[in-house]
């Protein structure tokens, strides 16, 4: 299953609902394009909902890191929502769990962004 995405706005936060695989090739490239497009359009508060992401490889992890640093360098915030156990374990193994701001409740996540 390739990656799919949809975007919605709540209280000035752009929520990107991702599903499927974020792997080398289509998935990681698609994520890069989504984040670049959001930044270009001035969206600086981004919440990536990974609840339906079934698989992520090192390329996908790299793309999450790139998205995080790109948004941060532009003065914005990027947070992660609803990690599956597989993604959670990967971020722990790679020590990225301490880098990302990770939430498991959407409303709490939205409130946590700087106003």
């Amino acid at each position, binding site marked *: 299953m390739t990656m799919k995405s949809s975007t919605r706005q709540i209280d000035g936060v752009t929520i990107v609902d991702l599903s499927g695989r974020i*792997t*080398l*090739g289509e998935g990681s490239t698609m994520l890069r394009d989504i984040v670049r497009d959001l930044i270009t359009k001035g969206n600086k508060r981004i919440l990536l909902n990974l609840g339906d992401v079934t698989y992520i*490889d*090192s*390329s996908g*992890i*790299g*793309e999450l*890191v*790139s998205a*995080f*640093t790109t948004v941060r360098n532009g003065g914005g915030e990027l947070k992660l929502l609803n990690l599956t156990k*597989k993604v959670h374990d*990967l971020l722990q*193994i*790679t*020590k*990225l769990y301490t*880098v990302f701001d990770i939430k498991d409740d959407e409303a709490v996540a939205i409130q946590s962004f700087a106003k």
Partner: protein
Amino acid sequence: MTAKRVVHRLDSTLESVNQAEQKASEIATASGFDEEVVHRIEMAVREAAVNAVYHGNAYDPNKKVTLQFERTPDALIITISDEGRGLDPADIPDPLSPENLLKPSGRGIFLIRSFMDEVRIRQLHPGTEVTLIKHRTNTEGSKEEPK
């Protein structure tokens, strides 16, 4: 159970990476590993296949990736080799060090080592051979043959 060996010769394409992952999943499942271990094996194989196709053979249509699965009574042994310029494990930076933590790449070999019981990297001149070993525990029994 006697040792059983299957060898695949794959093109240097992204499709081959997906094939390698799929075959690893089938064989690990048939070897009796539980779902979580199967995921770790298929992911380690995917990362090794990415290295072979992308970093090793650089998508060169004239170069092949060899993928071998060997099921022994004690372990599942997977060997992935390419025909590229070679990889020196000493040159691989530690992705957990603070200066590398936010780099977008460099986690493949680290993940392979995290997910497998043993990992051996050998230079082939030309190319690199990576051997991945997952030991069986007593609770794991072999199931049907993968197709």
